[in-house]
């Protein structure tokens, strides 16, 4: 198995290499890099032409230029990459690194969010096949497949962002009309997902409607949008709620060992909330620190689960890890919320539709949280738009995979053993259904990169997509190649991990 994966890796790298030749050739022959200067009446034009010719080696044939570029890139193996210069002579290394940061962050978040949400919705629709929920989701999925990303992005930029900014500036309150509308929508939609008989749906709908109306009213009166907090009380309640809820969902409340494990994890997260509060006010090492804490959380959860889990170790681990991860997310959310008012004071219109971050935020009196909040506010709309197609793909794939698996004989065997539906779906069907998904992760990534090209244009980010388009229009091959190599490299990595994931999920390949 290892041999197979390594062979695949090797062939993909080879393809990357061949593709680079192709892309270089096509880019160089796609137009005239000196076109604008030829038509210009500027007295400096001839000099500039000389400059450009020098920087881009325009006097050389394309294969010499390619070879020069390749040598620079191969230096990466000696840890001294040289991506060349753009046509102005500026060094591309820092440019590419900086641009890549923005773009890759966007793509990663969009990928993870689409996978998680897509799988969840896919499973739900598969369980609820032929219901109203299923049909509506199918229709929405089709709509997303037919939606031009750029058009939706412009719409979001011009309407959603501005509307949101206005709303925040005017006190961030829901009017009565909006409150009733939102509660009404919730009261209709949630019962459709929950299903059941007409009577039961009515009851669910009424409860949900009243609850959301109450919540929104509280939201307004507490000015939650301006001064949000989860707070200690929130963290405590929600952590325990998560523990109980996840246990009920995955293992059933009767399973005491799993329940106690989950409650322990919840208790620990509450303790760590207090313990880490001051430390996290200014996290040393930023996201690396948070990442390390995340790893530590998972390790602790797994260890607790395996010691306390008794005979239900598998379920205990899933519940513990989920509880731990979600509680940590809550704590993180609380920290973000704590710093929100400060950020609002610096930036009263939270979503500026230009750029990936606010440039004045590099001054010293701005905390790490505010810098990141700024990033997030700029990030969320592009992420949502980028996710639309990806989400649709994963939902549809998961659904059809689950339905396919449900027809298999071993599901019938599991039922014949007397397993509960929950066990049948989660333990038997789910793992088998995930196997084919590993294959589309790699393809989806390429689609997302295409999406960032468009989105960066619209939201005016200085990202790699924007770099690519500009350089292409200027017929400047070096930045184009830089873009291609970086995205290609990440794609190869994704493909590699997808292959490994495939092997992990399917023992027939492994053993």
């Amino acid at each position, binding site marked *: 198995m290892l041999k197979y994966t390594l062979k695949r890796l090797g062939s993909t790298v080879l393809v990357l290499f061949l593709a680079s030749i192709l892309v270089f050739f096509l880019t160089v022959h796609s137009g005239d890099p000196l076109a604008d200067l030829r038509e210009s009446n500027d007295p400096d034009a001839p000099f500039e032409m000389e400059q450009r010719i020098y920087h881009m080696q325009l006097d050389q044939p394309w294969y010499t230029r390619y070879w020069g570029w390749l040598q620079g890139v191969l230096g990466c193996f000696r840890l001294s990459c040289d991506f060349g210069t*753009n046509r*102005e002579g*500026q060094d591309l290394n*820092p*440019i590419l*690194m*900086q*641009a890549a940061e923005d773009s890759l962050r966007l793509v990663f978040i969009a990928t993870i969010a689409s996978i998680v949400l897509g799988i969840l919705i896919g499973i739900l629709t598969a369980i609820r096949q032929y219901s109203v929920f299923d049909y509506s989701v199918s229709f929405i999925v089709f709509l997303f497949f037919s939606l031009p990303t750029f058009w939706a992005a412009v719409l979001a930029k011009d309407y959603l962002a501005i509307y949101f900014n206005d709303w925040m500036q005017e006190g961030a309150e829901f009017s009565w009309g909006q409150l009733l509308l939102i509660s009404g929508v919730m009261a209709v939609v949630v019962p459709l997902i929950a299903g059941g008989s007409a009577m039961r749906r009515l009851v669910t709908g009424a409860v949900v409607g009243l609850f959301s109306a109450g919540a929104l009213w509280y939201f307004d009166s507490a000015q939650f949008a301006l001064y949000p907090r989860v707070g200690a009380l929130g963290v405590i309640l929600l952590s325990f709620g998560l523990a109980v809820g996840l246990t009920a969902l995955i293992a059933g409340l009767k399973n005491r060992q799993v329940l106690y494990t989950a409650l322990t994890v919840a208790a620990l997260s509450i303790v760590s909330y207090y313990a880490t509060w001051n430390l996290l006010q200014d996290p*040393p*090492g930023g996201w*690396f*620190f948070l*990442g*390390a*804490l995340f*790893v*530590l959380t998972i*390790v*602790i959860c797994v*260890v607790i689960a*395996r*010691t306390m889990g*008794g*005979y239900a170790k598998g379920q205990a681990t899933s519940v513990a890890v989920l509880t731990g991860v979600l509680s940590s997310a809550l704590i993180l959310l609380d920290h973000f919320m704590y710093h929100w008012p400060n950020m609002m004071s610096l930036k009263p219109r939270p979503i500026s539709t230009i750029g990936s971050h606010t*440039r004045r935020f*590099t001054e010293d009196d701005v905390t790490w949280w505010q810098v990141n909040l700024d990033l997030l506010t700029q990030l969320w709309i592009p992420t949502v738009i980028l996710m639309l197609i990806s989400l649709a793909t994963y939902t549809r794939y998961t659904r059809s995979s689950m339905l396919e698996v449900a027809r*298999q*004989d*071993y599901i*019938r*065997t*599991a*039922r*014949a*053993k*007397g*397993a*509960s539906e929950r*066990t049948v779906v989660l*333990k*038997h069907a789910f*793992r*088998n259904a995930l*196997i084919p998904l590993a294959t589309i992760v790699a393809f989806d990534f390429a689609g997302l990169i295409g999406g960032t090209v468009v989105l960066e*244009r*619209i939201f*005016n980010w*200085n990202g790699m997509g*924007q*770099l690519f*388009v*500009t*350089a292409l229009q200027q017929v400047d091959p070096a930045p184009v190649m830089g873009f291609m190599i970086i995205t290609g490299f990440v794609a190869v990595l994704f493909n590699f991990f997808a292959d490994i994931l495939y092997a992990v*999920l*399917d*023992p*027939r390949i492994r*053993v």
Partner: protein
Amino acid sequence: MSLMTILAEIDYEELLEDAEGQEFIFSWEPLIILGIALVIILVYLIASRLLRSKKELPPGEFHLEKAEFETDKALQFQDVKVTFATEFGTVDAVRGVSFDVGPGEVVAVVGESGSGKSVTSSTTMGLTAENASISGEVFLDGKNITQMMPGALRGLRGNEISMVFQEPMTALNPVLKVSDQLTEVFQIHGKAFGAEALAKSIELLRSVGIPDPENRIHEYPHQFSGGQRQRIVIALAVANNPKVIIADEPTTALDVTVQAEILDLMRRLKDESNTAILLITHNMGVVADMADRVVVMFQGEVVEQGPVKQILRSPQHPYTQRLLDAMPELRSETSAEEQTHIHAESAAYEDTEPEDGYALQGKDLALAYKFRGRSNRVVEGVNFAVKRGEILGLVGESGSGKSTIAKAVLGLLEVDDGELLIRGKNLPALPRQERRALRREIGVVFQDPAASLDPRFPIGDVITEPMVVHKVGTAKERAARAKELLDAVKLPTDVINRYPHELSGGQRQRISIARAMSLSPSILIADEPTSALDVSVQARVLEMFAELQQQFEFACLFVTHDLAVVDQLADQIMVLEKGRMVEYGRKDQILRAPQEDYTKRLLAAAPVPDPDLQAKRRQARRELLAAQGLSLD
């Protein structure tokens, strides 16, 4: 005409400024945190290693206890009716079925496709499809299953009533270990947990005859053979000492020797635990081997039921009579005198080559599958010779290479070594044109009726395709020939314009035969042509086959795993095992006076539809295996 476009361009200056503004400050804290995580992992691993070495697996115990019944009927059906709502309208699968099964009794439900026997069985488990409507009542030891709440019914499944399915290759979850799947059935019903459940599962595996269960239990299903997987499924069924086991065609997908083993296993388990078994099958031999009583179903109704000897020896209902008549019979009980007589005959039989040569001949034939440069020999050293008008039966279990030989004769597989002579010409040595011309002489009938005919071709085109390929005759002549052939296979001639999906399996096989005969071939290759058909349909097809053979006198290579079928049709028989010829000779000699051990085992394992005779054969098989030094299970 365009409006001003915001020419969005990348701002290199801004980028560079940002890049300079960002400095990567290395800090130790994240590494400290990761270090702590690592330490925790190490501590845990060490601690668990230490603890585990102290704690040993408690010796597991698993024995089948006698199932306790509260009433005198383990399973009772009262006027059960099942209807399906499909897009074609409502379909009555089961129309009023009533019978019962007593404790420790084996009741066989016999029927062909569409009889409703499988639906009846899945009703007891509550596993019918969504669009089924069930009326009537089913009682499990006094408890009314049809009125039970789903939760309570789930508590019974795998506990008091369990099921063994037909297809062992797909019955187990491929991504879970066998240990996981076995302990699950204990844990669901609260009989044992954790390490105790694992110990019990190991013993359970041992009792169903899986060797080295301590290690094998941690493997995945794909690492077991088909017969072993069926044993695991049986293990799942008996784990909680059920009152009733429903076995839905448990041995249909298995080789005949494996089938005998599985049936022995089931009988042993039943005897030890007094479980009632509802056995669904279409194989009368299996019925004679296992059953105490028989229920015969046809088109959703019970047409006859009674003790097994009565049903098998003196059936009353015309359907049952027809069914039993249709079964091909394997006559392999021969006295010692008969055997010596047969020996003498075969010794005296001289196989003389006819004037126009053998139709089909193989000399030291060896076949291999080539995969990515590597060649894998699957058939070695096979010799045979078939005259016109003779049928050679290729018999063997799965993996024996019989289908491979058929494929080689058809030209679907290259010959690796040796000679394959068709009408005297060595096939591998021929140039392509001649080889193609030789194809006219060979007709083929395959196993799967669903895939044998191109669904887009009307029947007339299907039958005349060989003529089209070899450019024989005009369109009119072909049409006439098609009608002629349809008459020969006893199908109405207006079927010419129909499509394959409108025909049943048996009818499609007849079309396959018609297609094979269209160029009046001198050789016919039949690769398990009736294995996928119901008994009565099979009888029709075989009957027709024999008639055609009398009429056209082609030589035939008949591949099958069913010894009774081969007894009915063949003149010569070749027994294959793992690609090698075990025995080859005239039918009488092979079937009634076999020489080789393997052939004897094969014959001993095939069940016959007479209960007393079958009991004797079982005993004989046991002795044979003991004599050959092989264990029984």
